[in-house]
């Protein structure tokens, strides 16, 4: 009897406990436990969709559709929960709802909204053409003119070079408008071409097969020539690179062999740490060495025969052939005095970044002399040949609200960077927001800015005992006209690189970056390895995503908006590279994960671990710069094949960088250049400039 009473009393508690846990695990934009919220749709917009649901169940189509169309235009670009963890704009959600309508619902929609759609299509001329077509595609796609609008919109996007969107428009007609009067064969050819140019190869192959199987007997006319769809496609692709070329990764992973034998002599070395330490008394030296900034590794970028470095805001350029310094922005000697100031001791030195083109170099840094603990990071553009400052974001009013966080990239002639607004709680400015900025590289003009989300977590204000967690640095990737940003705080988003419009976000599981423990003297906690965040890596058409504080690894197919698989993984892991079958992970150990079985194949612990630093990941081996030299690891077994001690001993490790002729070891003390010896016949490896540009920007 007592047992029964106890069970009855405990039952609600158990139920509520489970509900709470499930709620915490649920990936929802509205979950208050998640660190970042994408711009949310208003309550009215969400209620409108709920109303639609309710009315459509009753078959009240007029009222159901009316509730959908009462959503304000401004709300259509705000975000609601989609399927499988994706967070999508209201417009996309509305289109998917309309596309899934049963025949009587579609008929009702045409009855009530055909006139409006036709009016928009008739007025789609000149400046309003794109806007009107987008409105029809988004809101009135299932009307009688929706297919025509989508076709025209696809043409427009294709002309603008937005192949991804063009393909989506044509595919929408092919897949969702079976009763269209348009030629499905012709639309399929156009979609295949756009898919090919967007790099969506698996979908391209699928469409190409369909062209032969389904429309093999049809003849279509394109560009004044009449032929079967398959022949048309073949003709149009004749001038394009092959499929194999299109899918080829552009990273250093496909370049020739690398042989770092123990007998390699150093070509040149720049000892910048010696410049800082020159003239220090022993106590000063001890103090400097105990300063966390003494372990900072400079960020570097190469272009042509020049290496550009950003060492705690001190920029310099080296001639790659001789190692001779071409210019520098300031003397290193006084760095120690600046670094001893309290406000910079706990600064995250990995936030310094650099990216270069043939004419300019852009560095991300903060002024070490600025006594403000929250002093923002700023961009500085210099001339590549002389180091002369061209522009600084601190001089431009557009950048005033932002702290630039995360490495910038160069793509499509634009400079992309992520930024966070600087919330000042004393002025009740609310929580900081995450932005992506597109900048005109040569003059710093802001081309567009897009809000990705608002942080639910306040600023990092609790700096006890210099034990500061690293600030999450969002990572950017440019692929086929789209810009992907992994915020590292639970959302990976896709933006249009041209306009900055936010397509969708994928919400992944993550912990907050700053835990509650940090408020209370966290120094006595067992030392948890802190791994630097990593950018998503491409595996086929999917991205492998692992946030800095996430204990999950995700394979996300961005074009189909699907999660292919997910797997639990150590929070301290990071992504360091991938080949066809294997993903390589850093962290306390360097490890390899089989992409097919998702089993951990091997793990190798290297001196000081693989928590940070850039590795060389190639088909013939992995190379990591450790405090005990460069370790060469067999990618198949994880065995340490060779240890090349080199001339970097005494450093904390760092990054390895590959150029045409050199292997560059960048540590916290030196930049060392070793000759790159190719094995076998593949001796003269040359990169074309586009590949090199991409690599420079991507690796940075």
């Amino acid at each position, binding site marked *: 009897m007592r047992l029964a009473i106890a069970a009855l009393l405990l039952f609600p508690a158990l139920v509520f406990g489970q509900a709470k846990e499930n709620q*915490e695990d649920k990936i929802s934009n509205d979950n208050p436990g998640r660190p970042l919220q994408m711009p949310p749709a208003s309550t009215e917009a969400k209620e409108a969709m709920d109303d639609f649901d309710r009315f459509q169940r009753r078959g009240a189509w007029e009222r159901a559709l009316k509730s959908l169309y009462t959503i304000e235009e401004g709300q259509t670009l705000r975000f609601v929960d989609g399927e499988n963890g994706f967070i999508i704009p209201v417009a996309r959600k509305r289109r998917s709802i309309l596309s899934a309508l049963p025949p009587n619902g579609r008929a009702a929609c045409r009855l009530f909204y055909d006139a409006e759609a036709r009016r928009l299509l008739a007025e789609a001329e000149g400046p309003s053409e794109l806007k009107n077509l987008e409105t029809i595609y988004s809101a009135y796609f299932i009307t009688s003119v929706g297919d025509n609008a989508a076709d025209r919109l696809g043409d427009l996007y294709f002309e603008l070079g937005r192949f991804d969107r063009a393909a989506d428009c044509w595919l929408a007609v092919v897949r969702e408008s079976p009763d269209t009067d348009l030629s499905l064969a012709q639309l399929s050819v156009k979609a295949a071409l756009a898919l090919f140019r967007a790099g969506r190869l698996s979908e391209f192959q699928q469409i190409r097969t369909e062209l032969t199987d389904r429309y093999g007997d049809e003849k279509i006319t394109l560009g004044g020539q009449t032929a079967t769809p398959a022949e048309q496609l073949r003709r149009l692709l004749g001038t394009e690179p092959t499929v194999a070329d299109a899918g080829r990764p552009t990273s250093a992973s496909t370049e020739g062999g690398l042989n770092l034998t123990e007998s390699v002599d150093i070509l040149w070395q720049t000892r910048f740490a010696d410049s800082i330490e020159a003239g220090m008394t022993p106590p000063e030296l001890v103090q400097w060495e105990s300063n966390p900034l003494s372990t900072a590794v400079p960020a570097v970028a190469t272009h042509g025969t020049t290496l550009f470095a950003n060492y705690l805001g001190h920029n310099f350029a080296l001639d790659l052939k001789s190692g001779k310094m071409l210019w520098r922005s300031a003397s290193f000697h006084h760095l120690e005095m600046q670094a001893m100031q309290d406000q910079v001791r706990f600064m995250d030195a990995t936030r310094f970044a650099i990216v270069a083109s043939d004419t300019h170099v852009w560095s991300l840094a903060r002024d070490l002399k600025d006594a403000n603990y929250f002093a923002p990071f700023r961009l500085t553009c210099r001339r590549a040949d002389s180091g002369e400052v061209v522009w600084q974001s601190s001089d431009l009013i557009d950048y005033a609200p932002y702290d630039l966080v995360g490495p910038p990239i160069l793509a499509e002639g634009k400079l992309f960077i992520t930024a966070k607004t600087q919330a000042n709680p004393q002025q009740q400015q609310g929580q900081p927001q995450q932005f992506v900025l597109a900048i005109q590289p040569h003059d710093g003009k802001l081309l567009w800015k897009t809000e990705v989300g608002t942080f639910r977590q306040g600023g990092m204000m609790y700096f006890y005992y210099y034990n500061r967690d690293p600030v999450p640095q969002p990572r950017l990737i440019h692929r086929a006209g789209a810009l992907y940003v992994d915020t590292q705080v639970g959302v990976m988003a896709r933006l249009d690189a041209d306009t900055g419009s936010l397509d969708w976000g994928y919400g992944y599981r993550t*912990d907050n970056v700053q*835990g*509650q*423990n940090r408020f209370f*003297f966290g120094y*006595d*906690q*067992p030392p*948890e390895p802190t791994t630097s965040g990593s950018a998503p890596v491409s595996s086929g058409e999917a991205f492998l995503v692992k946030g800095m504080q996430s*204990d999950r690894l995700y394979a996300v197919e961005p074009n189909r908006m699907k999660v292919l698989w997910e797997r*639990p*993984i*150590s*929070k301290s892991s990071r992504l360091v590279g991938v080949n066809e079958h294997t993903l390589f992970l850093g962290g*306390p*150990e360097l*490890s390899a994960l089989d992409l097919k079985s998702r*089993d*951990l*194949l*091997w*793990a*190798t*612990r*290297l*001196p000081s671990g693989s928590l940070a630093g850039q590795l060389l990941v190639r088909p013939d081996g992995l190379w990591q710069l450790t405090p*005990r030299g460069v*370790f060469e690891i067999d990618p198949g077994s*994880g*065995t*340490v094949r060779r*240890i090349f001690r080199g001339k970097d001993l005494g450093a904390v490790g760092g990054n390895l960088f590959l150029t045409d002729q050199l292997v560059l070891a960048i540590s916290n003390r030196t930049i060392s250049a070793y000759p790159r010896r190719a094995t076998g016949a593949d001796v003269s490896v040359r990169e074309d400039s586009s590949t090199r540009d991409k690599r420079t920007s991507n690796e940075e």
Partner: protein
Amino acid sequence: MKNKSSIAVIVLVLTGVGTTGSAQVLSENIEGFSVVGKGLVTAKPNLVEIDLEVSAASELTADAIVKYRDAKRRIHDAFTSLKLENIAIEERGLGVEQKGMQNNYYFGGMPPSSRAKTEVQLSRKLVLKCSNIRKMDEDKLLQQIGKFLDVAQDAGAKVGKQNENSRYYYYDYPQNLGLTRFVLDDFDSLQEAAYEKAINDARTRAQRLARLSGVTLGPIVAVREIVVPGDRSPNTNYYPWNQDDENLPKRLETAKFQEIPVRVELMVRFEIQSGPKGKERAEKR
């Protein structure tokens, strides 16, 4: 009046009995000479040990096992490839713990509150032992130790004693923070010699006392060991980490490569010989 007399009786009884009792005990205790004899013999260490640790943690226990297994295998392989006959790796107990849930001693031993999921951590202490070092010259030994440390670090092992905050909490500050430990564990014959020296030393001291006291030294009637070489008595109730070292053979350790003292201290009690002088003194007393 009656009360006063009662008190006096009690005082007399107590003082009387007390005096008699203590005199009896005293006479027994001071019978003979108790002296401390010390014996010291030194020898070079015959073994050098290096503490290594392998540990691995992961959300999935299967991953932790792969990491742990690989880490341990690589250390074994690295030392096996040295092809040295005088080295061996001894494995201590395997720990299966929840990562990050160590006690937080500044919060009264409470584990850190966390919503984090369980991350399984496997860890094991390995002890690299290099024997027969006594006859090696210092340079060769140094070369060999250097090689061991390099190989261990290159193989990804954590070298040296690992930081254990709990020891500080119990005011047990480790004495040896060096990377290596020199050990003498073959000191049976040396120990015999040290005992012999300690007894001889005690006898010499007692004889001096007897001569100065004007009595004749009798035979040994009791011996108590004060310092015994290599004797350790870990109190596992208070120092749980010592459980690892349970049942270890007797040994002497030092952080430096030097002669290690084998020290014996004995408390020895000699009887006073019953002779004419002794009887006279007893009667007078």
